């Protein structure tokens, strides 16, 4: 008996490998699609920070002083002055057309007011409809303001014999020194790719798991599958999902290599905690797919729900817009998403390099998701054995 069951498991696995090889959808969704996603995100944001964002200028004053200020501006990394506009209106139009992301406005009389100590104002207009570009422009402008606005005073003070240290003390008595823990360069790819890559893989695992189980019903071969293991649903699922797991583990390893070896993203914890988190995320995604099959044993419904649920994982895990800023009901809902725990683990481990004990709760939560398929196995079993696909 025991021996026979064992070979039953092997036969299901063999059958599954053949199925995977015979239908192009498996190769596409398990290998090609993840690779496209990996390459897309990491090459899209390859430099980590956008360089030379186009910026405009309206210089109504047009004096030697304002021209000097503008020359300084061009030296900043993130912005590049591409065009001078004659009026505020023209610059605004260029911004509406998306030709520039920001512009400086130097009103008439700026130099004169500066010389007569009337504290003129130079304005910097950005368009945060493009939030990333606008935020970076804001940083450049702040730096510029710090350097340029004190330029005249600095020259005077040097001439009077003050030292560097004293000059800075006079011009800017309190200074901020910002430290971004773990990602000092504010690299956007580190910020986003670390979660986007596993999230895409997760979404594909949901769908492939569901498709591979319930398409058996649709094709009318699920009985054959169950017969191989004498109707043991756990063996049937194990035989089906283990060969897939092998492929997913390879794809998981590929993204770890891309992130932490090829792009050399921060990995303070060493690779093992992240490898463990990746493995758990893969297993949880499979388990979640099985659970949905049990809950809704209909291919189209299970797939639709998996899609909707899976896509929502991206925002609700809180890796871009932080979870603490969600409305309370959605903050609560976010705990039902495995990706949330993966993200928290990543922050603790790869980014901050904390001891594993800080992440135990997240690992435990991921492990708890693994129990999901145990909830309703008989529902799925019944469907696999009895259901006749119509339409």
């Amino acid at each position: 008996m025991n021996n026979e069951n064992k070979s039953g498991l092997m036969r299901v696995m063999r059958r599954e490998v053949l199925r995977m090889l015979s239908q192009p959808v498996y190769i596409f969704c398990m290998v090609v699609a993840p690779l496209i996603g990996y390459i897309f995100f990491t090459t899209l944001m390859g430099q980590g920070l956008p360089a030379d964002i186009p910026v405009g200028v309206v210089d109504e004053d047009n004096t030697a002083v304002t021209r000097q200020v503008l020359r300084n501006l061009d030296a900043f990394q993130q912005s590049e002055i591409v065009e001078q506009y004659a009026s505020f209106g023209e610059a605004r139009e260029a911004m509406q057309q998306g030709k520039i992301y920001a512009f400086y406005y130097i009103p008439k009389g700026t130099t004169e007011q500066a010389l007569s100590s009337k504290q003129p104002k130079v304005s910097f207009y950005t368009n945060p409809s493009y939030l990333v570009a606008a935020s970076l422009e804001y940083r450049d402008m702040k730096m510029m303001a710090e350097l340029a606005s004190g330029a005249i005073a600095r020259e005077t003070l040097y001439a009077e014999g003050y030292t560097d240290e004293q000059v800075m003390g006079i011009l800017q008595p309190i200074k901020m020194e910002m430290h971004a823990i773990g990602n000092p360069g504010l690299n956007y790819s580190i910020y986003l790719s670390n979660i986007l890559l596993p999230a895409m893989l997760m979404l594909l695992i949901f769908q492939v798991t569901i498709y591979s189980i319930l398409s058996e019903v649709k094709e009318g071969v699920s009985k054959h599958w169950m017969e191989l293991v004498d109707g043991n649903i756990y063996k049937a699922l194990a035989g089906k999902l283990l060969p897939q797991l092998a492929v997913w583990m390879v794809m998981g390893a590929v993204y770890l290599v891309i992130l932490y070896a090829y792009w050399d993203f921060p990995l303070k914890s060493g690779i093992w905690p992240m490898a463990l988190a990746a493995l758990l995320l893969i297993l949880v995604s499979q388990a979640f797919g099985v659970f949905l099959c049990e809950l809704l044993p209909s291919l189209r419904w299970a797939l639709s729900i998996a899609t909707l649920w899976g896509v929502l994982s991206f925002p609700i895990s809180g890796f871009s817009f932080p979870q603490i800023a969600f409305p309370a009901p959605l903050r609560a809902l976010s705990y039902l998403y495995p990706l949330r725990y993966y993200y928290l683990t990543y922050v603790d481990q790869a980014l901050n390099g904390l001891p594993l004990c800080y992440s135990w709760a997240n690992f435990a939560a991921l492990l708890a998701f693994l129990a999901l398929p145990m909830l309703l196995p008989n529902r799925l079993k019944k469907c696999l054995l009895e259901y006749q696909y119509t339409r």
Partner: protein
Amino acid sequence: MKWLHNILEVFREELHNSIFDEGVVVFFFIVPLLYPLLYAYLYSNETVREVATVAVDNANSATSREFLRKVDATADVNIIGHCADMQEAVDLIHKHKAYCLIYIPAEFDYALMDGKQAVVELYSDMGSLLYYKALLSSCTEVSLAMNKDIKTQRLVGATDKQASTFNHPIEYEYVPMFNTQSGFATFLIPAVLVLLIQQTMVLGVGMMAGEEREKKRRGILEPHVLGKKPWEMLMGKGAAYLAIYLVVAAYVFCVVPRLFHLIQIGQWQDMVAFLFPYLLACIFFSLTLSGIAHNREVFIIMFVFVSVPLLFISGISWPSCSIPHFWKVVSWLFPSTFGINGFVKINNTGALLRDVRPELIGLWIQTAFYAFTAWLVYYRSYGKHLKDSIEVAEVKLQARWAEYL
């Protein structure tokens, strides 16, 4: 007017299929109804406020306390506690009790008294860039105000000329336009809405085409496809999707922004004139892609995963000036790229139709191109049967099915 009759027949049949197929209803109606509400609600706070922050004040002087008090009073930062040393503070961050840390070294006051620069160190957890932004902008704001006071105090006794040089440099002012509080919802939701139209349409249309092919393989041919020319089928189906999506678009682009008080400053005429070709481009794009839908479900799995990349490739988040050339060319294949950019410009910044001419031209080119490719798809898959009478076609198909079995 045989052709008009044919088109209307296909139109009626397709409308019926869309409304009575639960799977299609999910993508055509339920998702466009619920997703925008969910997303807009998720981001309804626009930005993160009162970020939990801990302070380590080793100077513990009147000035350092004033600084912390003022930072605490800003909208974005909330100082939840003072720690005796860095160890304790860092531990609070590690336990996610706090996300930012302000460290004022013991030398802070000596430096101020000596007329040197006093440094305040800020640390931010990089789990989200918004923590960083909140901390930096709040502290900078406070330090600028305090610097002004300190400078005034120091200049007691200085000559008028000195005082004026220090106190009246050029002031710089930062003005966010169109999205005045640099909010997340205002930035992301319009793009999500536009993308949603394309994605749900592609999925719904693909499901229906997959179903049709499945039936065809089993020898069942919908009677309404017989005796029709490929272009008549395209027009009929396209008109059905257009009718549905005019309703969907009205809800998504008029009702949702109002419900959540999102920015909407475009002229409605411009909006309509822009979204109409977007819908057309999406329709023919969907019909073209449905050519690879050999069955209902495979198509879903193959297309859903591109949703998030499409949002990024549009240039709404990662600026398009920094998108590598290769990906930019790829992005032109998708109506969503032009749709998102044009719509955001009209809707968020009040651009006029002439301001979005490149996007508008792009959409019309896509409409023409995908209409042609969709015709090819229909010509290839139905051309053979469409000329036959219903009996002949069914006999042929059933013969093929028997062979297949």
